[in-house]
Protein backbone atom coordinates (compact mmCIF):
# COMPACT_ATOMS: atom_id res chain seq x y z
CA UNK A 1 0.00 0.00 0.00
CA UNK A 2 1.99 2.95 -1.20
CA UNK A 3 -0.60 5.58 -2.00
CA UNK A 4 0.14 9.26 -2.51
CA UNK A 5 3.41 10.27 -0.82
CA UNK A 6 3.01 12.07 2.51
CA UNK A 7 6.19 14.00 1.82
CA UNK A 8 7.54 14.64 -1.64
CA UNK A 9 10.67 16.76 -2.00
CA UNK A 10 12.24 17.58 -5.34
CA UNK A 11 15.61 19.34 -5.57
CA UNK A 12 14.77 21.13 -2.34
CA UNK A 13 17.45 23.72 -1.52
CA UNK A 14 18.02 26.31 1.16
CA UNK A 15 20.87 28.79 1.19
CA UNK A 16 21.91 31.15 3.97
CA UNK A 17 23.93 33.76 2.14
CA UNK A 18 26.66 31.88 0.33
CA UNK A 19 26.26 28.84 2.59
CA UNK A 20 24.18 26.01 1.15
CA UNK A 21 22.54 24.36 4.15
CA UNK A 22 20.40 21.97 2.13
CA UNK A 23 21.57 21.08 -1.34
CA UNK A 24 19.00 19.77 -3.84
CA UNK A 25 17.54 16.91 -1.83
CA UNK A 26 14.87 14.74 -3.42
CA UNK A 27 12.95 11.97 -1.66
CA UNK A 28 9.51 10.63 -0.90
CA UNK A 29 7.96 9.36 2.31
CA UNK A 30 4.88 7.16 2.08
CA UNK A 31 1.91 6.70 4.41
CA UNK A 32 2.57 4.29 7.26
CA UNK A 33 6.33 4.77 7.19
CA UNK A 34 8.65 5.46 10.08
CA UNK A 35 11.24 7.50 8.25
CA UNK A 36 14.61 8.08 9.92
CA UNK A 37 16.46 11.27 9.10
CA UNK A 38 20.08 10.95 10.16
CA UNK A 39 23.07 13.23 9.80
CA UNK A 40 25.92 14.83 11.71
CA UNK A 41 25.43 18.12 13.56
CA UNK A 42 25.32 20.85 10.97
CA UNK A 43 24.59 18.52 8.05
CA UNK A 44 21.33 20.32 7.32
CA UNK A 45 18.77 18.10 9.05
CA UNK A 46 17.13 20.83 11.06
CA UNK A 47 16.92 23.18 8.09
CA UNK A 48 15.36 20.47 5.94
CA UNK A 49 12.86 19.65 8.66
CA UNK A 50 11.95 23.29 9.10
CA UNK A 51 11.28 23.66 5.38
CA UNK A 52 9.05 20.60 5.41
CA UNK A 53 7.11 21.75 8.44
CA UNK A 54 6.47 25.18 6.91
CA UNK A 55 8.72 27.15 9.26
CA UNK A 56 11.13 28.49 6.65
CA UNK A 57 10.85 29.00 2.91
CA UNK A 58 13.06 26.99 0.59
CA UNK A 59 15.41 28.90 -1.70
CA UNK A 60 14.55 26.66 -4.65
CA UNK A 61 13.10 23.29 -5.49
CA UNK A 62 9.64 22.02 -4.69
CA UNK A 63 8.11 20.05 -1.87
CA UNK A 64 4.67 19.02 -0.79
CA UNK A 65 3.64 17.76 2.62
CA UNK A 66 0.30 15.98 3.03
CA UNK A 67 -0.53 17.33 -0.41
CA UNK A 68 0.11 20.95 0.59
CA UNK A 69 2.74 23.05 -1.10
CA UNK A 70 5.50 24.27 1.22
CA UNK A 71 5.62 27.68 -0.46
CA UNK A 72 1.97 28.57 -0.63
CA UNK A 73 0.25 26.45 1.99
CA UNK A 74 2.56 26.47 4.97
CA UNK A 75 -0.34 27.39 7.27
CA UNK A 76 -2.26 24.32 6.18
CA UNK A 77 0.84 22.19 6.77
CA UNK A 78 1.32 23.52 10.29
CA UNK A 79 -2.32 22.78 11.08
CA UNK A 80 -2.10 19.21 9.87
CA UNK A 81 1.20 17.94 11.24
CA UNK A 82 2.39 17.08 14.74
CA UNK A 83 5.78 18.22 16.00
CA UNK A 84 7.85 17.27 18.98
CA UNK A 85 11.41 18.14 19.83
CA UNK A 86 13.61 17.17 22.72
CA UNK A 87 14.64 20.74 23.31
CA UNK A 88 11.20 22.17 23.68
CA UNK A 89 7.92 20.46 23.94
CA UNK A 90 5.96 21.03 27.12
CA UNK A 91 5.69 23.96 29.49
CA UNK A 92 7.35 22.82 32.67
CA UNK A 93 5.60 25.39 34.81
CA UNK A 94 2.14 24.24 33.74
CA UNK A 95 0.40 21.09 34.93
CA UNK A 96 -0.12 18.07 32.71
CA UNK A 97 -3.77 18.96 32.12
CA UNK A 98 -2.96 22.61 31.44
CA UNK A 99 -0.47 21.56 28.78
CA UNK A 100 -2.99 19.24 27.18
CA UNK A 101 -5.66 21.95 27.16
CA UNK A 102 -3.23 24.48 25.73
CA UNK A 103 -2.11 22.30 22.84
CA UNK A 104 -5.65 21.07 22.23
CA UNK A 105 -6.69 24.70 22.01
CA UNK A 106 -3.96 25.54 19.53
CA UNK A 107 -5.18 22.84 17.18
CA UNK A 108 -8.81 23.83 17.67
CA UNK A 109 -10.09 20.71 19.43
CA UNK A 110 -13.50 21.33 20.97
CA UNK A 111 -13.69 20.79 24.72
CA UNK A 112 -15.70 17.52 24.56
CA UNK A 113 -13.30 15.86 22.19
CA UNK A 114 -10.34 17.25 24.12
CA UNK A 115 -11.62 15.92 27.43
CA UNK A 116 -12.25 12.55 25.87
CA UNK A 117 -8.79 12.29 24.30
CA UNK A 118 -7.09 13.60 27.42
CA UNK A 119 -8.75 10.93 29.56
CA UNK A 120 -7.81 8.22 27.09
CA UNK A 121 -4.25 9.48 26.88
CA UNK A 122 -3.72 9.80 30.62
CA UNK A 123 -5.10 6.30 31.10
CA UNK A 124 -2.66 4.88 28.55
CA UNK A 125 0.24 6.76 30.13
CA UNK A 126 -0.89 5.77 33.62
CA UNK A 127 -0.81 9.42 34.62
CA UNK A 128 -4.46 9.85 35.69
CA UNK A 129 -3.53 10.62 39.28
CA UNK A 130 -0.84 13.12 38.33
CA UNK A 131 -2.98 15.18 35.96
CA UNK A 132 -2.76 18.28 38.13
CA UNK A 133 0.96 17.99 38.83
CA UNK A 134 3.45 20.33 37.25
CA UNK A 135 5.24 18.83 34.27
CA UNK A 136 8.51 19.81 35.94
CA UNK A 137 7.95 17.18 38.62
CA UNK A 138 7.81 14.31 36.10
CA UNK A 139 10.89 12.19 35.32
CA UNK A 140 12.42 12.93 31.91
CA UNK A 141 11.25 9.74 30.31
CA UNK A 142 7.64 10.36 31.28
CA UNK A 143 7.88 13.89 30.08
CA UNK A 144 8.99 12.73 26.63
CA UNK A 145 6.16 10.21 26.43
CA UNK A 146 3.70 12.88 27.47
CA UNK A 147 5.15 15.26 24.91
CA UNK A 148 4.60 12.74 22.18
CA UNK A 149 1.05 12.07 23.35
CA UNK A 150 0.37 15.80 23.28
CA UNK A 151 1.91 16.11 19.81
CA UNK A 152 -0.58 13.55 18.46
CA UNK A 153 -3.55 14.95 20.37
CA UNK A 154 -5.08 16.22 17.13
CA UNK A 155 -4.32 12.88 15.43
CA UNK A 156 -2.03 14.24 12.71
CA UNK A 157 -1.31 11.90 9.84
CA UNK A 158 2.31 13.06 9.91
CA UNK A 159 4.47 13.67 12.97
CA UNK A 160 7.95 15.23 13.01
CA UNK A 161 10.16 14.09 15.90
CA UNK A 162 13.42 15.96 16.48
CA UNK A 163 15.74 13.89 18.68
CA UNK A 164 12.84 12.75 20.84
CA UNK A 165 14.77 10.40 23.14
CA UNK A 166 17.95 12.30 24.08
CA UNK A 167 18.92 11.46 27.65
CA UNK A 168 15.94 9.18 28.27
CA UNK A 169 16.69 6.05 30.30
CA UNK A 170 17.09 2.87 28.25
CA UNK A 171 13.88 1.20 29.33
CA UNK A 172 11.65 4.22 28.80
CA UNK A 173 13.46 4.89 25.52
CA UNK A 174 12.29 1.52 24.24
CA UNK A 175 8.77 2.06 25.51
CA UNK A 176 8.81 5.35 23.70
CA UNK A 177 9.66 3.76 20.36
CA UNK A 178 7.01 1.10 20.88
CA UNK A 179 4.49 3.93 21.15
CA UNK A 180 5.76 5.45 17.97
CA UNK A 181 5.64 2.13 16.15
CA UNK A 182 2.06 1.65 17.36
CA UNK A 183 1.08 5.04 16.01
CA UNK A 184 2.70 4.19 12.69
CA UNK A 185 0.89 0.85 12.63
CA UNK A 186 -2.39 2.80 12.55
CA UNK A 187 -1.40 4.10 9.12
CA UNK A 188 0.21 7.35 10.26
CA UNK A 189 3.64 8.54 9.20
CA UNK A 190 6.51 9.54 11.46
CA UNK A 191 9.57 11.48 10.37
CA UNK A 192 12.29 11.33 13.06
CA UNK A 193 15.86 12.38 13.77
CA UNK A 194 18.04 10.70 16.38
CA UNK A 195 21.62 10.34 17.52
CA UNK A 196 21.02 6.80 18.81
CA UNK A 197 22.02 4.59 15.93
CA UNK A 198 20.22 1.55 17.32
CA UNK A 199 17.00 3.51 17.00
CA UNK A 200 17.71 4.02 13.33
CA UNK A 201 17.18 0.28 12.90
CA UNK A 202 13.51 0.61 13.89
CA UNK A 203 12.84 2.77 10.86
CA UNK A 204 11.19 1.34 7.79
CA UNK A 205 13.43 3.57 5.70
CA UNK A 206 16.05 6.12 6.53
CA UNK A 207 18.32 8.66 4.95
CA UNK A 208 21.73 9.99 5.92
CA UNK A 209 22.46 13.64 5.25
CA UNK A 210 26.07 14.72 4.75
CA UNK A 211 26.98 18.35 4.04
CA UNK A 212 23.50 19.29 2.91
CA UNK A 213 23.01 16.34 0.56
CA UNK A 214 21.31 13.00 0.91
CA UNK A 215 24.26 10.61 0.95
CA UNK A 216 22.19 7.45 1.33
CA UNK A 217 18.54 6.45 1.45
CA UNK A 218 16.82 3.09 1.84
CA UNK A 219 15.59 0.51 4.33
CA UNK A 220 18.11 -0.60 6.98
CA UNK A 221 18.53 -4.00 5.35
CA UNK A 222 18.99 -2.48 1.88
CA UNK A 223 21.58 -0.09 3.24
CA UNK A 224 23.41 -2.87 5.07
CA UNK A 225 23.66 -4.81 1.84
CA UNK A 226 24.47 -1.83 -0.35
CA UNK A 227 27.29 -0.51 1.83
CA UNK A 228 28.46 -3.83 3.25
CA UNK A 229 28.05 -2.72 6.86
CA UNK A 230 26.77 -4.53 9.95
CA UNK A 231 24.63 -1.83 11.43
CA UNK A 232 23.52 1.76 10.98
CA UNK A 233 26.23 3.08 13.28
CA UNK A 234 28.89 1.71 10.94
CA UNK A 235 27.06 3.13 7.94
CA UNK A 236 26.79 6.51 9.60
CA UNK A 237 30.44 6.58 10.62
CA UNK A 238 31.53 5.60 7.11
CA UNK A 239 29.46 8.23 5.36
CA UNK A 240 29.96 11.06 7.82
CA UNK A 241 33.68 10.52 8.32
CA UNK A 242 34.42 10.53 4.60
CA UNK A 243 33.08 14.08 4.45
CA UNK A 244 35.63 15.33 6.98
CA UNK A 245 39.26 15.87 5.83
Amino acid at each position, binding site marked *: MKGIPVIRANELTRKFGAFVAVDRISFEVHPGELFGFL*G*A*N*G*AGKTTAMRMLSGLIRPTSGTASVLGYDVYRQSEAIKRSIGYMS*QRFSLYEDLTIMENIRFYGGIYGLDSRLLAHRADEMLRQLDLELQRDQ*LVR*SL*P*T*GWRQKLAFAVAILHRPRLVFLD*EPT*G*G*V*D*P*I*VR*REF*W*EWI*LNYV*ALGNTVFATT*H*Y*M*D*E*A*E*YCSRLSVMVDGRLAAIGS*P*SELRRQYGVH*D*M*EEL*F*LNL*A*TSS*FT
Partner: protein
Amino acid sequence: MEAIIARSLSKTYRSGKSQTHALKGIDLDIQEGELFGLVGPDGAGKTTLIRILVSLILPDQGTASVGGLDVVRNFGLLRQQIGYVPGRFSLYQDLTVHENLHFFASVFGVNAEEQYGLVREIYKYLEPFRDRKAGQLSGGMKQKLALSCALIHRPSVLFLDEPTTGVDAVSRREFWVLLSQLRNQGMTIFVSTPYMDEAARCDRVGLIQEGRLLRIDPPTAIVRDFPLTLYALSTDLMSRVKPDLASCAEVLSAFAFGANYHLTFQTSAGPQACVRMLEQKGHTNIRLEVIQPGIEDCFMYFMKGS
Protein backbone atom coordinates in the same frame (compact mmCIF):
# COMPACT_ATOMS: atom_id res chain seq x y z
CA MET B 1 46.04 7.71 45.77
CA GLU B 2 42.45 8.85 45.47
CA ALA B 3 41.81 11.90 43.36
CA ILE B 4 38.13 12.08 44.26
CA ILE B 5 36.45 10.84 47.40
CA ALA B 6 32.76 11.10 48.21
CA ARG B 7 31.11 9.83 51.38
CA SER B 8 27.34 9.47 51.66
CA LEU B 9 26.60 12.61 49.64
CA SER B 10 22.95 13.62 49.65
CA LYS B 11 21.17 16.54 48.07
CA THR B 12 17.52 17.49 48.04
CA TYR B 13 16.03 20.32 46.02
CA ARG B 14 13.00 22.04 47.40
CA SER B 15 10.68 24.28 45.49
CA GLY B 16 7.52 25.21 47.29
CA LYS B 17 5.92 22.09 48.70
CA SER B 18 7.56 19.60 46.39
CA GLN B 19 11.05 18.25 46.92
CA THR B 20 13.31 16.19 44.72
CA HIS B 21 15.88 13.84 46.17
CA ALA B 22 18.60 14.34 43.60
CA LEU B 23 21.27 12.31 45.42
CA LYS B 24 20.61 9.65 48.03
CA GLY B 25 23.89 8.73 49.65
CA ILE B 26 26.69 8.54 47.09
CA ASP B 27 29.98 6.82 48.01
CA LEU B 28 32.79 7.06 45.53
CA ASP B 29 36.57 6.62 45.32
CA ILE B 30 38.32 7.56 42.12
CA GLN B 31 42.01 6.95 41.63
CA GLU B 32 44.47 9.41 40.24
CA GLY B 33 44.82 9.03 36.49
CA GLU B 34 41.53 7.25 36.13
CA LEU B 35 38.99 7.87 33.35
CA PHE B 36 35.75 7.53 35.25
CA GLY B 37 32.36 7.49 33.55
CA LEU B 38 29.15 8.38 35.37
CA VAL B 39 26.48 6.74 33.26
CA GLY B 40 22.76 7.28 33.67
CA PRO B 41 19.66 8.86 32.17
CA ASP B 42 18.55 12.48 32.59
CA GLY B 43 17.35 13.20 36.08
CA ALA B 44 19.48 10.44 37.65
CA GLY B 45 21.57 13.00 39.57
CA LYS B 46 24.66 13.25 37.34
CA THR B 47 24.77 17.02 37.14
CA THR B 48 24.11 17.46 40.85
CA LEU B 49 26.97 15.13 41.75
CA ILE B 50 29.39 16.91 39.42
CA ARG B 51 28.35 20.35 40.65
CA ILE B 52 28.97 19.29 44.25
CA LEU B 53 32.40 17.92 43.32
CA VAL B 54 33.41 21.15 41.56
CA SER B 55 32.18 23.16 44.61
CA LEU B 56 29.36 24.91 42.76
CA ILE B 57 26.66 23.68 45.11
CA LEU B 58 26.71 22.45 48.68
CA PRO B 59 25.67 18.93 49.67
CA ASP B 60 22.95 18.56 52.33
CA GLN B 61 24.80 15.66 53.88
CA GLY B 62 28.07 13.86 53.46
CA THR B 63 31.54 15.00 52.51
CA ALA B 64 33.63 15.07 49.38
CA SER B 65 37.14 16.01 48.43
CA VAL B 66 38.98 16.45 45.16
CA GLY B 67 42.77 16.19 45.12
CA GLY B 68 42.67 16.06 48.92
CA LEU B 69 40.79 19.38 49.13
CA ASP B 70 37.39 19.49 50.78
CA VAL B 71 34.71 20.74 48.39
CA VAL B 72 33.05 22.88 51.04
CA ARG B 73 35.94 24.28 53.09
CA ASN B 74 38.77 24.45 50.56
CA PHE B 75 36.82 25.46 47.50
CA GLY B 76 39.18 28.33 46.68
CA LEU B 77 42.25 26.11 46.26
CA LEU B 78 40.20 23.35 44.73
CA ARG B 79 38.94 25.59 41.95
CA GLN B 80 42.49 26.29 40.85
CA GLN B 81 43.21 22.63 40.36
CA ILE B 82 40.21 21.45 38.47
CA GLY B 83 38.89 21.93 34.97
CA TYR B 84 35.16 21.91 34.36
CA VAL B 85 33.05 21.62 31.22
CA PRO B 86 29.39 22.13 32.14
CA GLY B 87 26.55 20.41 30.33
CA ARG B 88 25.38 23.54 28.64
CA PHE B 89 27.72 25.24 26.20
CA SER B 90 29.06 27.98 28.40
CA LEU B 91 31.60 29.88 26.36
CA TYR B 92 31.03 33.33 24.92
CA GLN B 93 29.15 32.92 21.66
CA ASP B 94 30.00 36.40 20.46
CA LEU B 95 33.74 35.98 20.95
CA THR B 96 35.90 34.09 18.47
CA VAL B 97 37.50 30.72 19.13
CA HIS B 98 40.82 32.41 19.69
CA GLU B 99 39.42 35.08 21.99
CA ASN B 100 37.64 32.54 24.14
CA LEU B 101 40.80 30.56 24.63
CA HIS B 102 42.78 33.66 25.53
CA PHE B 103 40.13 34.88 27.89
CA PHE B 104 40.05 31.66 29.86
CA ALA B 105 43.83 31.53 29.95
CA SER B 106 43.81 35.00 31.54
CA VAL B 107 41.10 34.06 33.99
CA PHE B 108 43.36 31.32 35.28
CA GLY B 109 46.35 33.62 35.15
CA VAL B 110 48.27 31.68 32.51
CA ASN B 111 49.58 32.56 29.10
CA ALA B 112 47.73 30.82 26.30
CA GLU B 113 50.86 30.50 24.12
CA GLU B 114 52.87 28.85 26.88
CA GLN B 115 50.12 26.38 27.58
CA TYR B 116 49.53 25.63 23.94
CA GLY B 117 51.37 22.30 24.13
CA LEU B 118 48.74 20.87 26.41
CA VAL B 119 45.80 21.63 24.21
CA ARG B 120 47.53 21.27 20.84
CA GLU B 121 45.97 17.89 20.11
CA ILE B 122 42.50 19.32 20.56
CA TYR B 123 43.09 22.82 19.35
CA LYS B 124 44.42 21.62 16.00
CA TYR B 125 40.84 20.75 15.05
CA LEU B 126 39.86 24.32 15.85
CA GLU B 127 42.82 26.12 14.32
CA PRO B 128 41.13 26.57 10.91
CA PHE B 129 38.22 28.33 12.65
CA ARG B 130 40.22 30.45 15.08
CA ASP B 131 38.55 33.69 13.98
CA ARG B 132 35.05 32.30 13.79
CA LYS B 133 32.62 33.23 16.56
CA ALA B 134 32.05 30.38 18.99
CA GLY B 135 28.30 30.59 18.45
CA GLN B 136 28.72 29.63 14.81
CA LEU B 137 30.59 26.39 15.46
CA SER B 138 28.97 22.96 15.05
CA GLY B 139 28.10 20.97 18.17
CA GLY B 140 31.22 18.82 18.06
CA MET B 141 33.52 21.81 17.54
CA LYS B 142 31.90 23.70 20.39
CA GLN B 143 32.64 20.84 22.72
CA LYS B 144 36.27 20.72 21.59
CA LEU B 145 36.60 24.42 22.26
CA ALA B 146 35.01 24.05 25.69
CA LEU B 147 37.47 21.25 26.41
CA SER B 148 40.43 23.37 25.29
CA CYS B 149 39.32 26.23 27.53
CA ALA B 150 38.89 23.92 30.51
CA LEU B 151 42.37 22.48 29.98
CA ILE B 152 44.28 25.70 29.44
CA HIS B 153 45.44 25.95 33.08
CA ARG B 154 46.60 22.31 33.30
CA PRO B 155 44.07 21.06 35.84
CA SER B 156 44.90 17.84 37.62
CA VAL B 157 41.29 16.70 37.62
CA LEU B 158 38.92 17.33 34.74
CA PHE B 159 35.13 17.22 35.13
CA LEU B 160 32.86 17.00 32.09
CA ASP B 161 29.08 17.01 32.38
CA GLU B 162 27.49 15.25 29.40
CA PRO B 163 29.97 16.59 26.85
CA THR B 164 28.52 14.42 24.09
CA THR B 165 24.79 14.98 24.53
CA GLY B 166 23.21 16.04 21.26
CA VAL B 167 26.50 15.51 19.45
CA ASP B 168 26.50 13.20 16.44
CA ALA B 169 28.08 9.76 16.47
CA VAL B 170 31.21 10.77 14.56
CA SER B 171 32.04 13.75 16.77
CA ARG B 172 31.30 11.69 19.86
CA ARG B 173 33.83 9.11 18.82
CA GLU B 174 36.48 11.76 18.19
CA PHE B 175 35.77 13.33 21.54
CA TRP B 176 36.33 10.08 23.39
CA VAL B 177 39.62 9.55 21.61
CA LEU B 178 40.72 12.95 22.95
CA LEU B 179 39.67 12.01 26.48
CA SER B 180 41.67 8.78 26.29
CA GLN B 181 44.73 10.73 25.19
CA LEU B 182 44.39 13.06 28.17
CA ARG B 183 44.02 10.09 30.49
CA ASN B 184 47.21 8.62 29.01
CA GLN B 185 49.00 11.86 29.95
CA GLY B 186 48.06 11.18 33.56
CA MET B 187 45.01 13.39 34.03
CA THR B 188 42.13 12.23 36.20
CA ILE B 189 38.89 12.54 34.26
CA PHE B 190 35.36 12.41 35.58
CA VAL B 191 32.82 12.40 32.76
CA SER B 192 29.06 11.89 32.77
CA THR B 193 27.00 10.61 29.85
CA PRO B 194 23.53 9.34 29.10
CA TYR B 195 24.87 7.20 26.22
CA MET B 196 25.40 3.69 27.52
CA ASP B 197 27.68 2.68 24.65
CA GLU B 198 30.26 5.24 25.77
CA ALA B 199 30.75 3.45 29.09
CA ALA B 200 32.99 0.88 27.44
CA ARG B 201 35.61 3.59 26.88
CA CYS B 202 36.08 4.29 30.59
CA ASP B 203 38.42 2.64 33.08
CA ARG B 204 35.59 2.38 35.54
CA VAL B 205 31.93 3.18 35.32
CA GLY B 206 29.38 4.25 37.89
CA LEU B 207 25.85 3.39 36.87
CA ILE B 208 23.55 5.97 38.40
CA GLN B 209 19.77 5.90 38.58
CA GLU B 210 17.44 8.02 40.71
CA GLY B 211 20.22 9.42 42.86
CA ARG B 212 21.78 6.07 43.69
CA LEU B 213 24.87 4.35 42.29
CA LEU B 214 23.79 0.92 41.09
CA ARG B 215 27.32 -0.32 40.39
CA ILE B 216 30.88 1.03 40.32
CA ASP B 217 33.17 -1.24 38.36
CA PRO B 218 35.27 -1.55 35.23
CA PRO B 219 32.99 -2.06 32.24
CA THR B 220 34.33 -5.57 31.71
CA ALA B 221 33.45 -6.51 35.29
CA ILE B 222 29.97 -5.09 34.94
CA VAL B 223 29.40 -7.12 31.81
CA ARG B 224 30.91 -10.23 33.44
CA ASP B 225 28.55 -9.93 36.36
CA PHE B 226 25.50 -10.03 34.16
CA PRO B 227 24.06 -13.17 35.75
CA LEU B 228 21.93 -14.45 32.87
CA THR B 229 22.56 -15.76 29.42
CA LEU B 230 21.66 -13.14 26.85
CA TYR B 231 20.24 -13.99 23.44
CA ALA B 232 19.77 -11.93 20.30
CA LEU B 233 16.67 -12.71 18.28
CA SER B 234 15.74 -11.74 14.75
CA THR B 235 13.01 -13.04 12.45
CA ASP B 236 11.47 -11.97 9.19
CA LEU B 237 8.48 -10.52 11.05
CA MET B 238 10.12 -8.14 13.50
CA SER B 239 7.03 -6.03 14.03
CA ARG B 240 5.19 -9.07 15.44
CA VAL B 241 7.96 -10.22 17.79
CA LYS B 242 7.08 -8.12 20.81
CA PRO B 243 3.37 -9.05 21.04
CA ASP B 244 4.10 -12.70 20.24
CA LEU B 245 6.75 -12.97 22.94
CA ALA B 246 4.25 -11.69 25.47
CA SER B 247 2.48 -15.04 25.35
CA CYS B 248 5.67 -16.97 26.08
CA ALA B 249 5.95 -17.46 29.86
CA GLU B 250 9.60 -18.51 29.61
CA VAL B 251 10.71 -15.04 28.54
CA LEU B 252 12.10 -13.00 31.44
CA SER B 253 12.89 -9.82 29.52
CA ALA B 254 12.75 -8.70 25.90
CA PHE B 255 14.17 -5.40 24.74
CA ALA B 256 14.52 -4.06 21.25
CA PHE B 257 18.16 -3.46 20.32
CA GLY B 258 18.51 -2.06 16.84
CA ALA B 259 17.64 -4.76 14.34
CA ASN B 260 17.39 -7.43 17.07
CA TYR B 261 15.62 -8.22 20.30
CA HIS B 262 17.73 -9.05 23.34
CA LEU B 263 16.12 -11.79 25.41
CA THR B 264 16.69 -13.50 28.73
CA PHE B 265 14.83 -16.62 29.86
CA GLN B 266 13.56 -18.11 33.11
CA THR B 267 15.12 -21.53 32.47
CA SER B 268 17.58 -23.15 30.11
CA ALA B 269 14.64 -24.71 28.28
CA GLY B 270 13.37 -21.26 27.45
CA PRO B 271 15.17 -20.60 24.18
CA GLN B 272 13.88 -23.77 22.52
CA ALA B 273 10.34 -23.20 23.71
CA CYS B 274 10.48 -19.67 22.44
CA VAL B 275 11.66 -20.61 18.96
CA ARG B 276 8.95 -23.28 18.73
CA MET B 277 6.31 -20.80 19.72
CA LEU B 278 7.52 -18.22 17.19
CA GLU B 279 7.48 -20.86 14.43
CA GLN B 280 3.89 -21.70 15.30
CA LYS B 281 2.96 -18.06 15.04
CA GLY B 282 4.30 -17.92 11.52
CA HIS B 283 7.75 -16.38 11.97
CA THR B 284 10.35 -17.55 9.49
CA ASN B 285 14.11 -17.23 9.29
CA ILE B 286 14.34 -17.21 13.09
CA ARG B 287 17.83 -16.57 14.44
CA LEU B 288 18.39 -16.91 18.17
CA GLU B 289 22.00 -16.84 19.37
CA VAL B 290 23.91 -16.26 22.59
CA ILE B 291 25.63 -12.88 22.72
CA GLN B 292 27.81 -10.89 25.09
CA PRO B 293 25.78 -8.35 27.03
CA GLY B 294 26.63 -4.69 26.65
CA ILE B 295 26.54 -1.96 29.29
CA GLU B 296 23.03 -1.02 28.25
CA ASP B 297 21.81 -4.60 28.86
CA CYS B 298 23.45 -4.52 32.27
CA PHE B 299 22.07 -1.11 33.11
CA MET B 300 18.55 -2.24 32.40
CA TYR B 301 19.09 -5.39 34.40
CA PHE B 302 20.46 -3.55 37.46
CA MET B 303 17.85 -0.85 37.08
CA LYS B 304 15.05 -3.38 37.31
CA GLY B 305 16.74 -5.12 40.22
CA SER B 306 17.00 -1.99 42.31
